[in-house]
């Protein structure tokens, strides 16, 4: 079976220790997590983990079974890239003088739909949101000018399908 990129969404109680519990499921099976983001959701006290992995569908199903087995996990889903809307964010810190000395930089920023977040006498910071590949293109364009710092966030995504977590929670309590 072919390996593919899957986005695993885990809806859970907002509890200390659950991140550890979920990450050990991957560690135990020697699976590398490509990115991991945890945030709150539209439902009070419910957190959402967004985990990006590259693996076969058969194995992603098994992993999902292990995740859903955890007491504080409400529901877990997996989606292919086509089934979700997803982005990542990146910050680039660059020396301020380049902004004036190297006019191309301004064009690069404009053409890549990036934004300047802050400018100081020493440095300025560019923010770029989008798919990983778009961020990589921008990175490669800026690289020759010198990047002081670069950081990229994990993936955040929403699914095209409805998730029905509130319904699940309601059903469980009745």
């Amino acid at each position, binding site marked *: 079976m072919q390996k593919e990129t899957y986005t695993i969404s885990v809806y859970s109680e907002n509890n200390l*220790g659950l991140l*550890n*519990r979920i990450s050990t499921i991957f560690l135990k099976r020697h699976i590398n997590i490509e990115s991991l983001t945890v945030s709150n959701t539209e439902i009070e006290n419910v957190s959402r983990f967004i985990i990006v992995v590259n693996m076969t569908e058969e194995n992603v199903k098994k992993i999902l*079974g292990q995740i859903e087995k955890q007491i*504080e996990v*409400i529901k877990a889903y997996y989606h292919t890239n086509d089934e979700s809307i997803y982005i990542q964010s990146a910050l680039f810190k660059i020396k301020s003088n380049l902004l004036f000395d190297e006019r191309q930089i301004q064009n690069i920023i404009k053409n890549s739909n990036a934004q300047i977040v802050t400018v100081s006498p020493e440095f300025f910071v560019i923010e770029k949101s989008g798919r990983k590949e778009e961020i990589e293109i921008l990175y490669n364009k800026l690289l020759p000018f010198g990047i002081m710092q670069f950081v990229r966030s994990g993936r955040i995504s929403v699914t095209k399908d409805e998730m029905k977590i509130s319904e699940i929670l309601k059903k469980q309590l009745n």
Partner: protein
Amino acid sequence: METVTKQNQKVNTTKKIKISGAEAVVKSLLAEGADLIYGYPGGAIMPVYDEFYKYQNELHHVLTRHEQGAIHAAQGFARVTGKVGVAIATSGPGATNLITGVADAQIDSTPLVCITGQVGSHLLGSDAFQETDIISISTPVTKWNYQITKASEIPEILAKAFYIAKSGRPGPVLIDITKDAQFGELDFTYKKCKKIRSYTPVPQINLSKIEEAAELINNAKKPFVVFGQGVTLGEAEEEFKAFIEKAEIPSASTLLGLSALPSEHNLHVGMVGMHGHYAPNVLTNSCDVLIAIGMRFDDRVTGNLETYAKQAKIIHFEIDPAEVDKNVKTDVAVLGNVKDTLSGIIPFLKENRHESWLQEFKKLYQIEYKEVIDGQLNASHEGITMAEVIETLNDKTNGEAVIVSDVGQHQMIASRFANFKLPKSKITSGGLGTMGFALPASIGAKMGAPNREVVAIIGDGSMQMNIQELGTILQTKVPVKIIILNNEFLGMVRQWQELFFDKRYASTVMTNPDFIKIAEGYGIKATRVSKRENLSSAIEDMIASKESYLLDVNVEKEGNVFPMIPTGATVSDVRLK
């Protein structure tokens, strides 16, 4: 959970009383009916032990000689009673010493609540004396764990712990309680936990799956059942028997399934797996429908997955959805507690007979008997065989004893030869294969089932892994019987060295102490037997004893366990020699 509790508090009209967190631990245990617990005191758990002292007429605490002994005793208690076992220890080394037992209980689905003391919450993360991050350490081997830092959390969290440990597929829960939470005060009210909003212990039964499974079984010419501990944990022994009898299906047990069906039942065709019986292993690859009930297709059962029952349709009766398709792809998964799903399927089953198919098992059993069993039971050479010991024990206990075995050759022989008439009669460390399990587990088993004869079958190697628990027997006077099958080798490893490593016996030769003297030092009666003609009377004396008794049986030194499926081989290629 939070919402549930809030609702509960509204309906709870019990008058509130202010007590310490430590006392709340004791009162919570009593509220759960856990009045027999195993443990070892230490600094960070002392407030709770102080309450044990005050409540000693209501709650019986058994002081073991090591925390590992405490948790295995709790496991033995849980396995023989079906109740939640409780083990308690202090922080740091006390807590880490529990871990082997926690991992064992996790892989063998044993309901446990483990309570550990922890340094004061203001010291967390400061590398304080006997501080260890037991929550992180225990996470991968617990069904659930939680660190309590406030006294007020104690009743709610312990209620949750007992509920999680026992419900659905059981497992161990570890609750770590900081010392300040034990000293702190709370208004105590206890409400049992019945629901957690993020947790579905038993999946909903799907009737169409039951019908699909019934149709496959009704049309099968060569149906074959492999049953595991799920039958025991679900207390579904009667439903299971009715199920296999109605459709006349030959049924084989996994290691942990043993005693869920009486050994002498005419449809019981033995044990599957690496050292299981010949017929069920061979015929796994001949059946047309394989019905797995409360088992998880462990690699010791399946051998090579690429060649495991490929010809058969697979039906899996299972409580844990994560087990479905994990190792073996199923055609029909019947989710739910096997007690409900089996009683649900019976009305859909046709009464059926499979006489010639059953004969195939009997024929292969005759081959195994001639090639393996006969030589072990009716040996004429010098040196008692392990099989003779188990056979004599069957005879002297009328097959009604609880057999607690450790890990190794003696475990496999005990599993192959013991005759089980009653449920919950076989307690052993299956998934984890924990040497040192049996002696403490037998203590817990005997305390859980005081009216049953409990016999620990232990190898000379395993005996020395938790031998200190003889001290627990001395102090509690628990009348467990101990048989050491002593071949002065780490027998199973030696067997592999003989078969696969050209007899290079690396570190498997044991120079043993005098077990009789050791037992006597602990005030336990003990005898040694090394001649066949004395075996019967020696076992008789042991069984007749009203007190604990140790029998050191010197067995043949280089006996091997057969049949055997070498690691990674196909089940039907099981070797008879």
